[in-house]
């Protein structure tokens, strides 16, 4: 049923994650100015995606699980987008 992948492929995934952790820490040593946070978030999202797809077997799940796994991300985006928009479009007298 869920018998996907092998021990070796799991370990390969782990090595990839370790490599990405090095990239995360390494990237933080450089100052990209306004791009610092986006770069950190992109790397983190790649890592999170790898964990979800392979360790959590999302790759083998049906569409319904994908919907429930991704919809909260949209809601999180809404929450942040609307509150940040409000904060920085206020006109203070």
């Amino acid at each position, binding site marked *: 049923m869920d018998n996907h992948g092998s021990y070796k492929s799991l370990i390969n995934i782990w090595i990839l994650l370790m490599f990405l952790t090095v990239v995360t820490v390494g990237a933080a040593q450089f100052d990209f100015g306004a791009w610092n946070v986006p770069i950190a978030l992109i790397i983190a999202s790649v890592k999170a995606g790898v964990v979800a797809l392979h360790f959590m077997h999302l790759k083998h799940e049906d569409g319904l699980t994908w919907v429930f796994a991704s*919809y909260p991300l949209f809601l999180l985006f809404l929450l942040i987008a609307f*509150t940040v*928009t*409000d904060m920085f*479009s206020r006109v203070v007298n």
Partner: protein
Amino acid sequence: MSQEQEKNYLENGEGFASWFFTVDHKRIGIMYLWAIGVFFIIAAIASFLVRFEHLTPGQTIMTAHTYNVLFTLHGSMMVFLFIVPGVAASFGNFLIPLMIGAKDVIFPKLNLYSFWLYLLGAAVFMIALAAPADTGWTFYTPYSIESGANVILITFGIFILGFSSILTGINFIVTMHKLRAPGMTWDRLPLFCWAAYATSLLQVLATPVVGITLLLLIGERFFGLGFFDPARGGDPVLFQHFFWFYSHPAVYIMILPAMGIISEVIPVFSRKPIFGYKAIAYASLAIALISFLVWGHHMFVSGQSKLINVIFSVITYAVAVPTAIKVFNWLWTLYKGSIELSTAMLYSLAFIFLFTIGGLTGLFLGALAADVHLHDTYFVVAHMHYVMIGGTVFGFFAALHFWYPKMWGRMFDEFKAKIAFVLIFIGFNVIFFPQFILGTLGMPRRYFNYAPEFQSLHQLSTYGTWIGAAGFILMLWTLMRPLPGKAPGNPYRSLSLEWSMDSPPGTFNFDEIPTITEPVYNYGTKIEEES
């Protein structure tokens, strides 16, 4: 049917333990019904006293502080202990497995744990009444940080209640995905189940945000975190954002199950197939999705930016569309139907009428300029009660009467129940219609005192509570004293699955899982005549 040998669910086991430790979804539903009923009555008494206080300007029977405590008690108890868990957890538990042809919900034990969590949350909430909160049910900062009341305990109670609500939501969603009987496709699913599905989505996805908000509020009082405190660089409006991110979807948690009930009752007593089945079903989902986009319309005068005000106002109009779709479809179902004015049908018709008033006055409040005038006045109070009582509570009462034979296996006195309905309907309108006028005249909500020129309208409103209370007591009296004799399995000639079995159902619902071959609402068609 071979259910004669099998005991029905009410007879299967006696005594406290057989209820408190049951995993039978029907018994759990009944226990929710009792629990929310008790809290409804307590909160209703609080509101009765609040209204009594307004008989005269200044002090009538209580001090200003008692008044603040009582309206907070009324609001928070009605919202968190009655109406949010209410219809979904009680009737949802009882009906969903019966309607989809399953023996139980998919996680029966989790279902029981959810109920225990509900009781635990309610207990913590009640303990907090030792130093009752006076913040209003919204717990707005900064007052909720400064208030000397027991805010931490009460919000922690609500946090636990939220957890219970999340687990119930997960249970219902997975049940409807995995346990539908063969042939029970999504386009044959009863509309109550669609509504419960949309409700569960909201419970699962919105409740965690209020969870973290209340945790942060507790942290704010405990450690002085400063997120919501301008003196520490925080922003009190952020609390309102977080709070309404949950609480706006929550108003649809409150109303959607009632809409589902109406969609069940109206076709049965019109003897017609429901008009626009798919439109109603998808409208439930659309409401669930859009309701996450409009929370800022509660905050037009909070200091929120003008840009975001306009965005939220526009989207607010969009959420009215699926709601209106439902109302039109119910009306079309009634059109040329052979209408039978049973008690449940009366409550349902009243629902359409009152909910439409509530919904349309909501549009006034969604309009930016009008809201500046009407915000935090009695207009809002009236609007909200037209939706919550005229909508949800009337839907809840419709369900209490409609499924009464199924739940208890007895019939009730329709005549007395109809008199009770008339009293409740009149009482409700006498209470809240004057409040629309009071609000437009500028009477602010949550005020202990008022100017003398408002007295006649306030008094009228208070008299309404007496009529409504009389009706409610008569309704309880009627329902507590069922008629002698056993109820038939299907007294209303309904076609949906829960009526195909004995009243009350056996412990395991179905001896054999049925196979569904027809849509649920085939009233007045060839199929019905054959059966």
